[in-house]
């Protein structure tokens, strides 16, 4: 159904289209959670960190899923605010959510960095720099609910909820209820 509403809407259509429904979003996050378990040799080394503000609720949902899939391991949950690391802070009004909260030392850990939409990759670059100030993770993996393309930096996601081709002028709105593309 999500695929259906997508076709033919990317460039010329005017208006908005729901590309992921509430249940699509829930299933995508569940699948990402299972993939994280599959790909990590030891879940005890994993920490899930949501990017302020859009990635935080997804990170929370992933952590809840991980607790169900592997009840013996408690995977810590963090949040990272990248406001101070942006390369474009002087170009647009800066937004701040809650402060960074990273409950454990990151050195040696596998960090799963979580955001809602992957677009140019600049926010992820800033987040990588921010994580660096909290230690040296063994590796950092990137989980996103939506990959909309148009990368401007050599950054790729490890876990993707859904690839959505978009026009560069489209806007992608993500909430817990729906993912909507406006053109």
């Amino acid at each position, binding site marked *: 159904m999500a695929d259906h509403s997508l076709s033919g809407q990317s460039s010329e259509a005017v208006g908005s289209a729901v590309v992921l429904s509430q249940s699509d979003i829930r299933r995508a996050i569940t699948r990402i959670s299972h993939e994280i378990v599959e790909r990590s040799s030891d879940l005890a080394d994993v920490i899930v960190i949501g990017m302020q503000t859009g990635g935080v609720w997804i990170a929370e949902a992933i952590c809840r899923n991980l607790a169900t899939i592997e009840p013996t391991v408690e995977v810590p949950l963090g949040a990272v605010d990248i406001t101070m690391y942006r390369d474009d802070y*002087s170009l647009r*009004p*800066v*937004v701040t959510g*809650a402060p960074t909260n990273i409950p454990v030392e990151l050195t040696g850990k596998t960090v799963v960095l979580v955001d809602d939409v992957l677009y140019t990759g600049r926010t992820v670059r800033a987040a990588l720099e921010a994580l660096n100030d909290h230690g040296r993770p063994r590796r950092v993996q990137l989980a996103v609910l939506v990959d909309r393309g148009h990368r401007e930096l050599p950054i790729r996601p490890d876990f993707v909820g859904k690839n959505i081709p978009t026009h560069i002028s489209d806007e992608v709105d993500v909430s817990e209820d729906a993912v909507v593309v406006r053109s």
Partner: protein
Amino acid sequence: MKHLLSTHDLSRTDIESLLNVADHMAEINQRPVPKVPALRGKTVASVFFEDSTRTRLSFETAAKRLSADVMTFSASSSSVNKGESIRDTIETLSAMGVDAFIVRHRSSGVPLAVTSWTSASVINAGDGWHQHPTQALLDAYTITRERKAGNDLHGVRVAIVGDVKHSRVARSTTHVLTSLGATVTLVAPSTLLPNDVTAQAATATTNFDEVIEHCDVLYMLRMQKERMDHALVPDIAEYCDRFALTPARAQRLAPGALLMHPGPMNRGVEMQVDPNDVAQSRILTQVTNGIAVRMAVLFSLLGSGSASNLSKGNE
């Protein structure tokens, strides 16, 4: 917001935004490496025509933690001694490339005058009896964060004690705290009470012992030595007897109250008790918080759009 000259430039929303941004800065200050690249490439000049320890070092530390470059100017070791005017000094530094001036001067209004001699941002770090806005913000930050009940101060009773009339700290802090809803009582002998108590939305009393048990925040001001030479305080012993924080008075503070002082303290004058012996003292917390608050001010002026854009919504 381009300059920060007075607390009167700040709406309640602006104040709350700055306090919220300061939370982000406080988190940075707790890290093993307390430094972020936010103001990389910006140059901040601290231009102090009047002595200062904590305000200058606090501002310079704040700028460095945001990766700005810092130029330090002090009047005592500069060409001011050769007769260079303030205007020439500012224009000279400006020509070297400065993004923000942090200005302190013993005359009210100098920071405002500086804005007409440079295109850089200007932050008032204390001018005469007029204003000291970052002190007021760090006081508000300290009180709200110690109380852990958000930015609102409704119902909070603050007593500011000492030479209120000549104090830019009292003037600025009273304005910010009342803007957030606090009730401020100014406590001083009548010669040291300001003429505009009502305009400051405060009340005044000359009886310290009447208010000490009933305040949530006790804010002691420094008794400035030069005042004692004038007729304003004819007898320092009598002044201390009525307005100093003695061990006996400290005992009467409510257990949950906060004791604050902008520094530097005059031990044996207004502070006759060692603050380290007073559990309610937050005097060093004020100093720590000062860095986070000044980082928030610098970032809001130099790093982004206006302060009111800061904590709003998404993208």
